[in-house]
């Protein structure tokens, strides 16, 4: 099998090519083309094929991570969308959860009011009503009224229609009526039913998710189909698959039906890349830190598993998108983060970023404010002639000026002290974020390694690990292409869910069994459609539970096999355990409520085989380039230390590098501080062990 992974980021489109038969891997980086990302994708694919001497016809699969869905939402650039909803509830998506985003502000914006996904004029109501607990019809729907509403929306020129009825997750019949009428009256329209997109309770979240789905649906469809056409037009005969927020890939067909599940496509690929890198390095418990220009993504891998986000935390911008997402948290800390003294005299770094334009002061593109990259440069940690492989020359003098003027003078510090301060503060922001995701959720961080990725990750990783008291840092062979790697290592994955709201103690086991069976049937059918061979198909069950009366659920695993009283007991036990772990306490006497059940349909993809690095001895001098003076703080003293600089591509398995040292490669630089020791493993991972104090 030959596969290509393509991850489109803001600056670069990263590609990776894998030939399983030959056991070869190739990577490629090309500038992104934000106006039409498929151009960059096609450029990269052609280059990569040329580079590896394989024609596009021979590629079996192309896996793609995309930010198109995210950008359409963040830039309010979807299509004109209409909604048909229950009479009396026209403004559910406008009122939201009625909470102001900020407590202390008169001038704040309410994004869902300023930029409604569906304008009020296009939200039409029809008389109908379903009621709990069974979805019984209280008021039947009137087809003539529906028809009038659909004709009105057509006349208004909406391209897409969201259908959102109260309690439709219990009974989709009324939404199905609207779907049929739309197909009769306005077959060109893109349709999203809330009972299909997200059959779960909480009307605001469900309606908004459905509306977002409709809002981005036509343009996502257009992009994906165009890319698919371009690929096939160039001879590609395999399957195009898209990375989903929940961490699997899905077919073009499934993706265009539910584009809302593409919202975290990019970060999800990064998290999976982290899982794979952890495995390659042989570590089970890893914190993945992917630091780019403006932001850092953090993912905790406990026993190599990525957690899912809590369903009420799954937002995109300020909109609720209640779809499963891998738990990747993002903070505004990166190489471009700006350091400043605020009006109260406090030293701050970020979250504002100089971005790529004008960029850090040292880019010489007009940026005057000191950034994290400037601090690294001033301290000697970056090589001005080898940034992005030398494609961008850095000017240390401009960094010194910026730090002097905006920080050092105001704080009565030397430039070096101020630059070290910048690093400490930005590192601390990352430390806080990592702790929030790990220690404060009960993971003992001393048993974790820090996986450093992104251009800036390896620069900071050792300092972070030190502050976090983590024993070691892993720098994978290609830290800059984490997401593309992730694409090569993911399975096909489809999530099907249903709201149950049953108490474990009195659960209708037959209904539960029937519902699981139905979800499993849907999952299996999808995998068959995707031509997944039988021996590679699997399903996984889960349930979202809470104590009766609580408002928030925790997700727990559900055993396979026949669904019976034992299954229910296992769900309850798993929930008590999860509650104890999450909150430090379980209430064994309280009733457990099964809120949603879920089935994941999985099509297994063969794992990626990474070629081993060339073997060498402990002595790394074959990769030695030169000495440079680098500023470190050790024992509370700021010192300039002569530091050896090595070339990453020349390192051999078995090489041992004593800190202080720098390891440079095209897309990143690893800092090994004094006292630490780096070792190259069999696959070329650089494993840095920190000095214990």
């Amino acid at each position, binding site marked *: 099998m030959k596969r290509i992974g393509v991850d489109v980021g803001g600056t670069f489109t990263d590609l990776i090519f894998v030939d399983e038969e030959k056991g070869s891997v190739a990577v490629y980086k090309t500038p992104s083309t934000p106006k039409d990302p498929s151009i960059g994708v096609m450029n990269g694919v052609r280059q990569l094929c040329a580079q590896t001497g394989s024609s596009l016809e021979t590629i079996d699969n192309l896996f793609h991570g995309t930010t198109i869905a995210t950008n359409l939402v963040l830039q309010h650039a979807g299509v004109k969308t209409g909604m048909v909803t229950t009479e009396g*509830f026209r403004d559910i998506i406008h009122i939201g959860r009625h909470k102001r985003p900020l407590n202390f502000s008169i001038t*704040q914006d309410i994004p869902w009011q300023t930029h409604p996904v569906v304008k009020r004029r296009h939200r039409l109501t029809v008389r109908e009503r379903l009621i709990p607990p069974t979805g019984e019809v209280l008021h039947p729907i009137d087809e003539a009224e529906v028809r009038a509403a659909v004709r009105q929306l057509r006349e208004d020129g909406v391209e897409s229609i969201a259908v959102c009825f109260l309690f439709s997750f219990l009974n989709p019949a009324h939404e199905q009526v609207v779907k049929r009428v739309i197909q009769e009256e306005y077959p060109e329209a893109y349709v999203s039913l809330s009972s299909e997109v997200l059959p779960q309770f909480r009307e605001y979240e469900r309606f908004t998710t459905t509306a977002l789905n409709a809002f981005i649906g036509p343009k996502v469809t257009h992009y994906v189909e165009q890319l698919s056409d371009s690929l096939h037009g160039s001879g590609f005969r395999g399957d195009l698959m898209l990375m989903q927020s929940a961490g699997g890939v899905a077919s073009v067909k499934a993706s265009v039906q539910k584009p809302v599940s593409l919202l975290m496509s990019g970060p999800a690929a990064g998290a999976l890349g982290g899982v794979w890198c952890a495995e390659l390095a042989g570590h089970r418990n890893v914190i993945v830190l992917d630091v780019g220009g403006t932001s850092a993504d953090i993912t905790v891998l406990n026993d190599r598993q990525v957690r899912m986000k809590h369903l009420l935390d799954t937002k995109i911008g300020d909109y609720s998108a209640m779809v499963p997402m891998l738990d990747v948290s993002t903070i505004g800390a990166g190489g471009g983060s700006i350091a400043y003294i605020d009006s109260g005299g406090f*030293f701050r770094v970020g979250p504002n970023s100089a971005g790529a334009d004008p960029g850090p002061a040292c880019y010489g593109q007009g940026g005057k404010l000191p950034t994290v990259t400037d601090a690294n440069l001033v301290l000697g940690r970056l090589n001005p002639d080898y940034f992005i492989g030398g494609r961008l020359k850095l000017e240390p003098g401009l960094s010194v000026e910026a730090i002097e003027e905006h920080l050092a003078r105001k704080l009565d510090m030397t430039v070096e002290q101020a630059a070290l301060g910048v690093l400490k503060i930005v590192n601390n922001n990352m430390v806080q974020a990592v702790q929030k995701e790990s220690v404060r959720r009960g993971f003992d961080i001393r048993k974790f390694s820090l996986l450093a990725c992104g251009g800036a990750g390896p620069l900071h990783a050792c300092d972070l690990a030190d502050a976090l008291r983590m024993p070691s840092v892993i720098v994978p062979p290609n830290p800059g292409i984490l997401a593309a790697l992730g694409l090569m290592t993911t399975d096909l994955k489809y999530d099907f869910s249903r709201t149950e709201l049953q108490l474990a103690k009195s659960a209708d086991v037959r209904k539960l069994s029937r519902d699981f069976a139905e979800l499993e049937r849907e999952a299996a059918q999808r995998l068959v459609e995707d031509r997944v061979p039988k021996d590679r198909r699997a399903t996984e069950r889960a349930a979202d539970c809470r104590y009766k009366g609580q408002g928030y659920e925790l997700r727990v695993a559900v055993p396979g096999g026949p669904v019976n009283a034992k299954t229910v007991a296992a769900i309850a036990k798993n929930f008590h355990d999860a509650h104890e772990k999450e909150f430090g306490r379980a209430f064994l006497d309280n009733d457990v409520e099964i809120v949603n059940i879920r089935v994941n349909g999985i099509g297994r993809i063969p794992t990626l085989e990474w070629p081993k690095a060339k073997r060498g001895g402990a002595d790394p001098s074959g990769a030695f380039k030169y000495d440079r003076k680098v500023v470190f703080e050790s024992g509370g003293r700021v010192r300039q230390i002569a530091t050896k600089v090595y070339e990453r591509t020349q390192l051999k398995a078995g090489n041992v590098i004593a800190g202080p040292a720098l390891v440079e490669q095209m897309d990143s630089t690893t800092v090994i501080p004094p006292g630490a020791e780096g070792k190259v493993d069999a696959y070329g991972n650089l494993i840095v062990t920190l000095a214990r104090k």
Partner: protein
Amino acid sequence: MKKDQKVCIRGTDIPRVKIDPVTLQVLGGAFKTLAQEMGLVLYRMSYSSIIRESEDLGAGIVDPLGRQICESESTPMHTGSVPAYVRGFQRRIIEELGSTIEEGDVILHNHPYYGATHSPDVHIAVPIFHKGRLVAYSALQAHVLDIGAHTPGLCIDAIDVWAEARLYRGLKIYEKGKKNQQLWRHILDNVRTPSMNESDIEAMITAAQFGRKRFLELIDEYGLEVILSAAEEWMDYAERMLRAQIAKVPDGTYYVESWLDDDGKNWGQPLKVAVTTTISGDSVTIDLTGSATESPTAYNSPFEGCTRTAANYIVRTVFLDEASHAEYIPQNDGMTRALNLIAPEGTIFNPKFPRACFTRFPQINLMSDCVMRSLVHVMPERLCAGTSAHIHFVSYSGYIPEEQQYWVYLEVNEGSYGGRWGKDGMDAVDALNANTRNVPIEETEWHHPLRVERYELRDDFRAPGRWSGGLGVVRETRYLTDGQFTCEGDRHMEAPQGFFNGHDGKAGAIVKNPGMSDEISWPSKISGAAVKKGDVIRIVTPNAGGYYDPLDRDPQAVLDDVLDGYADLALARDAFGVVIDGVSMKVDAAATDALRKAARKSGKPSGKSSGTDGRVPAAKSGRGKVVAGAAAR
């Protein structure tokens, strides 16, 4: 060079040490995260929707002097409210009873004359000892469903503080680590929702213990001196940031008054809210002298726990608007230091014991609105026209014979904000001191014998202005069994005020069985009214005021208003001077120009407008001058 002199942490002999700017940032982040997570543990674990969905809670670390080190950001009513509780129970336990706080104690407290925001906001505090010394409390409070008042859930018409709640005055439900089971049973035996209260209070204890553990970990890591010194630094920082902004506003005394509907018993007798705001250098004084005498009902605001908290809230909101400050400025004791608050004893803002004081939200919201209105002429670009400045806090309830307890559903109905500089007002969000979350209808109907029949923006139009006022909501709920209805509401009489030729908004309303033969309008406050199966209650919350002259509104925005149902063609013409072709639905630019010219020439806006000439005496700015009947003190 300054000489080294030993400065101590206030109230202790622990030296205050100098902290490098980096460690200071580290600890600022750690404090913030700690408090946030206390809140998170509580609302994710808790049972009643008022805590878990609405997040009506506050949590944080408070030092033994009652100074707040950090707090969770949940709903503003709990902003800085934790310390008053701590001061209150310390006064009770240490000063009055001559007793001590011990390691392992868990303190339960809700007394409104000892710092509570009001009695249903039940407080749990866990003392934090370090090497035998009490260094802080991990403390939080949250609204419980029922507190044993004379009506289920909420309470309006109570004769005194004993009628409004079971009072917990600094009780130790754990003493030195041992739970007092008798007391615990007594507490649960005297509320209508014992299962919910039990689970919620257990969740609070877990969250408080969590905070204690985290704070001790920080002390272990950095040392007590550093932690407490950093706390002092962050308090000073917050104070500095706030004062710097106050100093930018011209000195002066600004007066506004406004009217509350009634006290929930003496119908037709409005209560005055009088607010004199004085800016002097980098300090602000809010003087409530002239406000109504305390009510004979529970319609009074506890001074320390509630009036002060609300005043702190509005001062921060006005002067340190979060949207205009990129950096995180913590809410701590420093944020309270620039404010001098005056409320004479015996008024609705500072009732005398044993007046009941359960119901206080409309008063403090209107007080906050008045503070803004008093300053709107001096800082128009940072404030807004009159807000809904109300609450409609509702208790739907009924008795469940087979469980021998009640079901209670508490609902905070949303308000609206006036038009703002460059922006229309916010629609249908919680107003001012409230910032809770609504409960999903699909949750409400699942768990309670209620059916929500309507939940939408109000039918009438946005108050015209260059920037229009936000809309309130209409919500209709049907009882599926017999039950009771209690509402703490206000502003059915006085509409939110428009400014600078912006129109006034509209008042709120409650109607029982609208459109039916027995339709009846209810006042804004209802105490435990009996409701029959099938009855429908409609709640309509106020629309906020418009800002600046509607004749200056962008005609395209007016067209959008018409298309979205926020205005109609007649209002577009009469109030905004915008002519829209009803067939093509396009703005007629020439006709609009002509109409607007004529309207401006006639010297008054074409629509109904009260603006600053309304029936409420308006704010006037005057440097150092007391105007319009403000009490000079």
